[in-house]
């Protein structure tokens, strides 16, 4: 592992495309800013691993015809068919 010392406000450039900047330190917490192209996913490692694990758990490795009935799983009152109407999340915003 490459280990570098950086001061607050200094950055590291990775592959000419990803910039990792030390924003602030506070005790054992370091605030970093990451600038990366949108096709490079950036995640907190523990969250990434948690979602990865969840996906693996959810993966069904059986032909769809052999998958058990879902009759026991009841979603709440259907509105419209999911693919027939726009998503209803009006609160869904583009804020960071």
């Amino acid at each position: 592992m490459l280990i570098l010392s950086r001061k607050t406000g200094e950055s590291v450039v990775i592959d000419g495309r990803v910039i990792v900047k030390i924003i602030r330190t506070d005790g054992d917490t370091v605030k970093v800013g990451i600038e990366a192209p949108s096709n490079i996913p950036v995640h907190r490692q523990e969250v990434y691993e948690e979602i990865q694990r969840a996906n693996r758990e959810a993966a069904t490795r059986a032909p769809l015809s052999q998958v058990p009935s879902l009759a026991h799983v009841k979603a709440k009152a259907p509105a419209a068919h999911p693919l027939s109407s726009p998503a209803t999340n009006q609160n869904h915003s583009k804020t960071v």
Partner: protein
Amino acid sequence: MSSVAEIDIAKTLQVQLPLGLLGFEPIKTYSLIAKPDQEPFLWMSVPDGEDLAFLVVPPSFILPDYAPDLSDDDADFLEIRHPDDALVLNIVTLRSGGAATVNLKGPIMINRHTMIGKQVVLSRSDYAIQHPIRSA
């Protein structure tokens, strides 16, 4: 363009996930399959007989006020300009004993016009990765 008519006729639709699902990055293309007796659940399955599929559900059926935030970067990546452009699907895990949970923390956001999507991770939210789905 994805239309209801297309869905009703073909019952399948392709979704492109250029970055793949977390843990399944190499797989970029899924078929979205609706089975009438299983709605509102849908299957996201790997075409070409790979026997791998994910059960998904539009979150409005689970949590009507679910409001995932899309970052500007993700909105740009998916070219989602308006909430109505987004088709949101959450992955369901079937568990033993008939229980099921849904991942509200890592929804799949799809541009319903281009059918290009991405599994996003909601950074600032209390949404659970294993949100229980109530059985009847």
